């Protein structure tokens, strides 16, 4: 009881702090200098129609690199934790229904293509590498569900993961060598605004991010699916 009232007390304390933090909030009328710059110069500088993409891939590209790295780290750690334990060996699984197998055989390529479409168009429409990657991962989930019993090779995922990650870093590097700085996308031609092949390296980078995110998330799911952990 004492504990609970203490918890209520500190939660109330946090509420108070947060209320203080929003105390100066009022609906915004204007963009501030920073976002104003993104809105006015962003399209020109990066060639991306989607300003969020411009910010994510270019202006705050280093954040994105870090974020991809975090996903990479978590996938690595999860793999490290779960793969070191026993693998499932010839365990009997519930048979997958015929319908699911057939449906997934049709759906997986479609979903995969949707994912690719999303990150290729990241500089033009909502969506991009993360969303596309998540869609790719969902294709993976479907595949795992339909292909129960068969083992999925990790190598392909690992190669995708490594190559796309390295490619991201490498493109960033090209930005230093060929353009104005690390992760500058303008070393490729900005192209015609609003077209698929435009915005310099953004589509390329976003594709790599998409592949990477997709591979990482798939990897996490795959490892979780395969692990024998907690199933003695």
């Amino acid at each position, binding site marked *: 009881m004492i504990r609970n009232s203490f918890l209520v007390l500190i939660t109330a304390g946090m*509420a108070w702090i947060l209320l203080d933090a929003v105390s100066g*909030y009022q609906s915004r009328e204007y963009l501030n200098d920073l976002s104003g710059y993104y809105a006015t110069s962003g399209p020109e500088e990066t060639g991306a129609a989607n300003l969020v993409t411009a910010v994510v891939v270019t202006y705050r590209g280093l954040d994105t690199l870090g974020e991809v790295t975090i996903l990479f780290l978590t996938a690595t750690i999860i793999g490290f*934790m779960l793969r070191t334990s026993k693998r499932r060996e010839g365990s009997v699984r519930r048979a997958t229904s015929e319908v699911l197998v057939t449906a997934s055989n049709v759906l997986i390529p479609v979903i995969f293509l949707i994912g690719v479409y999303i990150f290729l168009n990241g500089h033009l429409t909502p969506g991009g590498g993360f969303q596309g990657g998540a869609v790719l991962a969902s294709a993976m989930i479907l595949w795992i569900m339909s292909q129960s019993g068969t083992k999925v090779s990790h190598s392909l995922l690992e190669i995708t993961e490594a190559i796309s990650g390295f490619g991201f870093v490498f493109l960033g590097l090209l930005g230093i060598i060929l353009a104005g700085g690390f992760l500058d996308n303008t070393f490729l031609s900005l192209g015609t605004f609003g077209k698929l092949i435009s915005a310099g390296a953004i589509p390329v980078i976003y594709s790599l991010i998409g592949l990477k995110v997709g591979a990482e998330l798939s990897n996490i799911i795959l490892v979780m699916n395969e692990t024998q952990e907690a199933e003695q």
Partner: protein
Amino acid sequence: MNLPGIEYLSLGLGIVLFLAGLWGIIHQKNIIKIIISFSVLDTSIHLILVSIGYMRNRTAPIIDSAVSKTDAASQVVDPLPQALVLTAIVIGVGITALMLTYALKLFNEKGTLEIDKFKSLKW
């Protein structure tokens, strides 16, 4: 009728969810429940961040047929918080997955998910 704008609502909602998540984290004993609370907390932070980037009567920060390049500054909402939230979401899912893996391993070691039971190290 003079209703508050949705940005106020979503901001308030974010804060209440934040507190709810926090309450779950400090109050629930089950590790999975704690992790669920974390994901509520995460969502609430995203909500708060997106809300503070919102401006009324403006559109998404994408230049298309509706928004011209030249007028973008007066027509779109702030893209930056959205970019931050994108990053935060992906980080969040990574951490949630990591926590869950921990939960799995911890369960495997002790056969329980009660957080009070993992006190082998102390003082």
